[in-house]
């Protein structure tokens, strides 16, 4: 977010001061049941059995996230390219899309539980449903904004419709697709953790809620630290991949600003 990546002493100082305040307040007593000191959460993280459990839950959450997110990307990009390119396909689906889109995606969880039970399939399905929307809509937008001259260029080189879709429309829409993927990344994580809370038997969402109900707040906070790290790591990974894939586009913007 910042061009300036200097070591932020003031920021770290404020952060440390807040943690210290929390630590002192908790140690003063009387609040153990809901606000253990941060050191207790850290200690929980380093306890072998908690760490082992957390690792297992992390693996479950990550697996469901990747399954749902990647499948959503594949399906939504494919559908978006077709809907963006074919006026007929778009006009047929437009009303249905407009009706389904405003419904908060988590409302699909009960339906998914009914149809798929309470396993990984259900959680991956709801993640696909929720994550697909931003990708689909942005892909449609990107393909619809495709420059006519680019299509004609492909045609003058003798490319047929399918090849133009694949070699011209898809890469030209890539920046839009990337926007969709960026928006749906946290959404996918929300859906995975939510479905784990509502109907899970493992995963970080399940773990955090379960530790809360079992009155082990230190473990709950440890779980939150892990899920925050997961969110942070996924975001960094996405930014790095995007920077490589769209290196040509970043240049374009840099020149436009100059």
């Amino acid at each position, binding site marked *: 977010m910042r061009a300036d990546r200097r070591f932020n002493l003031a920021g*770290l100082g404020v952060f440390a001061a807040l943690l210290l305040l929390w630590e002192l307040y908790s140690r003063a007593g009387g609040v153990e049941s809901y606000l253990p000191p941060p050191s207790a959460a850290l200690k929980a993280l380093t306890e072998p059995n908690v760490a082992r459990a957390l690792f297992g839950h992390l693996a479950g959450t990550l697996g469901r996230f990747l399954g749902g997110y990647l499948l959503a990307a594949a399906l939504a990009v494919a559908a978006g390219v077709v809907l963006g390119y074919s006026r007929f396909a778009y006009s047929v689906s437009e009303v249905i899309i407009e009706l389904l889109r405003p419904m908060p995606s988590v409302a699909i969880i*009960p339906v998914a539980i009914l149809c798929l039970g309470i396993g990984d399939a259900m959680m991956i399905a709801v993640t696909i449903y929720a994550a697909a929307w931003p990708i689909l809509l942005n892909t449609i937008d990107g393909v619809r904004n495709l420059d006519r001259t680019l299509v004609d260029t492909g045609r003058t080189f003798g490319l047929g419709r399918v090849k133009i879709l694949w070699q011209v429309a898809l890469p030209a829409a890539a920046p839009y697709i990337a926007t969709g993927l960026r928006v749906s990344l946290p959404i996918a994580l929300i859906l995975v953790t939510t479905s784990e*809370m509502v109907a899970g038997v493992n995963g970080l969402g399940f773990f955090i809620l379960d530790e809360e109900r079992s009155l082990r707040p230190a473990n709950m906070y440890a779980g939150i630290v892990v899920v925050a790290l997961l969110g942070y790591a996924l975001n960094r990974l996405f930014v790095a991949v995007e920077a490589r894939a769209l290196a040509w586009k970043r240049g374009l913007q840099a020149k436009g600003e100059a």
Partner: protein
Amino acid sequence: MRPSKISGFVALLAVVAAWELVARAGLVNPLLFPAMSKILASFLALLASGEIPAQIARSMERAAAGYFLAATVCIPLGVAMGLSERVYRALEVVVETLRPVPPPVVIPVAMLFLGIGDGMKIFVIFFSCAWPILLNTIDGVRNIDGLLVDTARTFGLARGRTILKVVLPAAAPQIMTGLRISLSITLILVVISEMIGSTDGIGYFILNAQRRLKVDQMYAGMIALALLGYILNQAFLFVSKRLLRGR
């Protein structure tokens, strides 16, 4: 109406009719997919009995409280962080640490502190809405043309009035972007928090209908939710168009 819209409605009717036929023919488990006519009848009945309006009203109270709280806190905070490098750097680490936390996992924390009442839900909505509003406000304020602020100062405007008269209007489009993103997040989080820790609200209603196997009521609740999302979105567009008139 555009001809393309007509084919869209024809397609919608076809899907609804197909659903009805398949359900009536017994090709699908009626426990999972009741006939469309039954769902719509149930929706109308729940609407007339006041059940759905009441549940939606409960959800909307929480949603509005969390949403407006987030706007009230995060717009001024964002302006401060956008204008002052010092404020920004002081809070940067805290913001960057909290932001990647997926909002649903804040629900258990809030339940510890606040139980399963409205306070918990309002806090969770506040937490999840805060980020888009805050980050967009910071960005919007930062991207203001420095000339604009200088102009205001040559007219002798005091700092407070400069913010009110120049900074906020100039950053308004991007602040509205943040508010629009947060609006859809609000709806998601109110439903989630009602599913996990509640005894009323539309999110609870839908999940509870599923658990009691009143599947037609579950779908009716989803229809209500979709309508609610649509209306809120349209209302937002209407308001933001008025606020950003001439832009």
